[in-house]
């Protein structure tokens, strides 16, 4: 399968060119090729008339292409100036010598963002200011193209405005900006042209002026995608088991919802919409204001209490948050319910082995033995071990944060089956996902999130309006209100 297939388009010099498409549409792969992380199997790239065939990010930078990554690469302990010249210092036998580099950098910074003091410590800057720092570094090193991948994901509204000013100044300095964002409003506000990707294919490249409205853009993004048909479950839902009212914290903004026994609910939104924060709040891992009642009682303030009350979480990052990679499958599974495999503090090995064998079989974990170290399993099988951990806890509410990220299609289907059979037995399941197909494939009810707010609740079924959902999760509701 190809992540990007036969893509051809042109970007005008000195323009702000936006790339849009759903998750997995091929935007990131394209960026990786431009920056030398991946090499195309066929085809050519040309930057300002010169053939561009970078084998590394270093070579891409020499070819004039710089990238602003989502994670920031600045050193908090150093000053702005020191950060800007980091790695470019001139030295003489290990001693730093003054160069005219400093002057150049200060000049560039003054053009791009005069309000930042070059002698300020970077730790005192905001996230947006740090991004501007990285942009300045790219610009002063002579980059003619700067790629920005979701630069506003972690920014407040005021900071976004500040970043946009900088991007416009870059444009007037004849720097080309390739701007990737899920937030469609930003594209209309900022972009000169837009390229739409879908399933690794180039759909269209048009000037923004030729796109009539959001609906037009969304239509190009989703096309006539055929979703796996949702089958309404023939099960009577139970009582409300969880009620959340007015959840707020640094990300969430007055979120209220409820979950019934035996129901599969989905929380759908883009990266940064607040899905993980809702899951972690229910699980007692994050702080919040407001109230979450589970079976009539306020949920605990720690994961330990949440698990004891009957809630389990499959966390977002399986390797860093879910799995004990230096231990075996058998040793991983009982962690959330140790009491079940022990008596007076002594482990009952027979019970443990039986449980491990049961889950290996039930979830189809492909392994030669339950004594295999989980670091040696594939991503999909690791995810199944994390799932087995949660199932072993025998909870009444299972929260799954991005349960199928990086998992192959076969394993995905099996994970969905497990979720359905859980719900059929009366367990409530909450899925937090950035994949619309996943959410619409299995959930009975879907909550749409944007920017930390719960925008809308929809009942899943035949008449689901995908274009409308896309509109909501990309901020269309606020857009319409303006």
């Amino acid at each position, binding site marked *: 399968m190809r992540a990007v297939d036969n893509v051809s388009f042109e970007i005008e010099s000195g323009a702000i060119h936006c790339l849009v498409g759903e998750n997995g549409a091929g935007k990131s792969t394209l960026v990786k090729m431009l920056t030398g992380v991946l090499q195309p199997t066929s085809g050519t790239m040309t930057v300002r008339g010169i053939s561009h065939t970078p084998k590394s990010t270093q070579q891409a930078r020499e070819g004039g292409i710089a990238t602003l990554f989502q994670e920031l690469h600045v050193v908090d302990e150093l000053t702005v100036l020191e950060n800007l010249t980091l790695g470019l210092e001139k030295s003489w036998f290990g001693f730093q010598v003054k160069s005219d580099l400093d002057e150049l950098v200060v000049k560039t910074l003054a053009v791009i963002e005069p309000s930042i003091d070059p002698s300020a410590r970077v730790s005192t800057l905001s996230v947006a200011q740090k991004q501007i720092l990285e942009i300045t570094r790219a610009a002063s090193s002579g980059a003619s193209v700067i790629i920005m991948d979701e630069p506003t994901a972690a920014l407040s509204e005021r900071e976004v405005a500040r970043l946009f000013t900088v991007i416009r100044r870059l444009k007037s300095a004849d720097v080309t900006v390739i701007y990737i964002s899920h937030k469609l409003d930003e594209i209309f506000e900022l972009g000169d042209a837009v390229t739409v990707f879908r399933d690794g294919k180039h759909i269209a490249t048009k000037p923004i002026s030729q796109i009539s409205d959001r609906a037009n853009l969304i239509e190009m993004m989703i096309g006539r995608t055929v979703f796996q048909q949702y089958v309404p479950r023939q099960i009577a839902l139970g009582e409300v088991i969880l009620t959340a009212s007015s959840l707020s914290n640094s990300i969430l903004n007055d979120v209220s919802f409820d979950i019934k026994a035996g129901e599969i609910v989905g929380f759908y939104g883009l990266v940064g919409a607040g899905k993980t924060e809702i899951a972690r709040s229910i699980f007692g891992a994050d702080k919040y204001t407001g109230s979450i009642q589970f079976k009539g009682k306020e949920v605990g303030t720690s994961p330990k209490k949440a698990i004891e009350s009957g809630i389990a979480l499959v966390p977002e990052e399986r390797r*860093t948050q879910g799995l*004990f990679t230096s231990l075996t499958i058998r040793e991983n599974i009982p*962690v959330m319910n140790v009491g079940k495999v022990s008596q007076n503090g002594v*482990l009952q090995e027979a019970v443990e082995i039986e449980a491990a064998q049961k889950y290996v079989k039930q979830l189809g974990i492909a392994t030669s033995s339950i004594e295999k170290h989980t670091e040696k399993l594939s991503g999909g099988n690791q995810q199944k071990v994390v799932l087995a951990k949660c199932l072993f806890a025998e909870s009444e509410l299972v929260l799954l944060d991005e349960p199928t990220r990086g998992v192959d299609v076969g394993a995905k289907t099996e994970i969905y089956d497990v979720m359905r059979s859980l719900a059929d037995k009366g367990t409530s399941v909450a899925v937090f996902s950035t994949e619309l197909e996943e959410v619409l494939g299995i959930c009975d009810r879907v909550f749409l999130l944007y920017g930390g707010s719960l925008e809308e609740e929809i009942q899943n079924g035949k008449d689901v309006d995908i274009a409308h959902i896309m509109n909501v999760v990309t901020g269309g509701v606020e857009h319409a209100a303006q």
Partner: protein
Amino acid sequence: MSISVKKDKSTQEDIKMSNENFITLLVVCVAIGVFLFASLLVPNFFQFQNMVNLVTNNWAVISLGVGVTFLLVSGNFDLSVGGIVALSGVLAVWFAQSIDGANALSSGGGLPTYLAMLFALAGAMAIGGLNALFVVRLKIPSIIVTLGTMMVARGIAQVITHGSQRNTNLPDDFGLLGNLTLFGTTIKLPVVLMLSLVLVAVFLERKTVFGRLTYWIGSNPVASKLSGIDSSRHQTYLYLFSAAIAGVVGILLASEFKSGFSNRGMLMEFDALVIALLGGIAIAGGFGSVIGMFFGAIILAVVTSAATGLVLSPDWQFILKAIAVFLAITTQTWALARRNR
């Protein structure tokens, strides 16, 4: 794209040896190999009594190694054990010395022996509590905290002994525990205690929830928290456990020599760390075993006693230890990488 989910027929049957058992076996083989090699070079080395001596002479450091091993597996260091050995020994002697000595160094608390030893143990565990407080509650890296408490413990011992030792005016029964021989043999009580401790530790490590918690916390602290484990409480227990062992070792040594010496147990914390690493315990946590540590201690003991047997000057001991450590750790890393390729 093809959907292929392999459902292995022999899913459960062929249970292979775990990496842990593999490394432990390797350490045992290396220990035997080193012993045989030393027997070739050193006259009279290959004798039963010598094998026994390799274990009995090292009871103190092996005991300390147990606590250090559990902490390493949980992802923490304990460098304070040597200092605690000195402190608890000095405290026991000081508390037991009669109050009417001729000078400051020969008069103490005048307590009965058993009370003096109990209070000394409490003093040792207070250092363990201090470790737990700084590491667990204040989240300061354990290597820094225990380096500090190592000096605190030894510092207190030095103040109490005025930089030397206390060995006068002690009740007669103070020397009993450390010199008691059992079963009509020459084997002393501390050695038997050490062997029992190792057995208990192996049981704890492999068969109990306590042991498993240690591995979970060391393997992935974040996942432990998200799986509902109270890692703060467990790490506190581990530090108290390690300090208690070191306290008992210090008291037994003080009893054996009928003296409280502020320099006792010097560098023992490093020996305990070295035998744990020789025994295959991962410094990153989540991996290793007490048996491995035990045979790590044997490797170190063979190397040092062979050096003495070869009439090498004691000055060479550190170099030999260093060579043994580098060889053993390189072998392990290489063998594990090869196995998991």
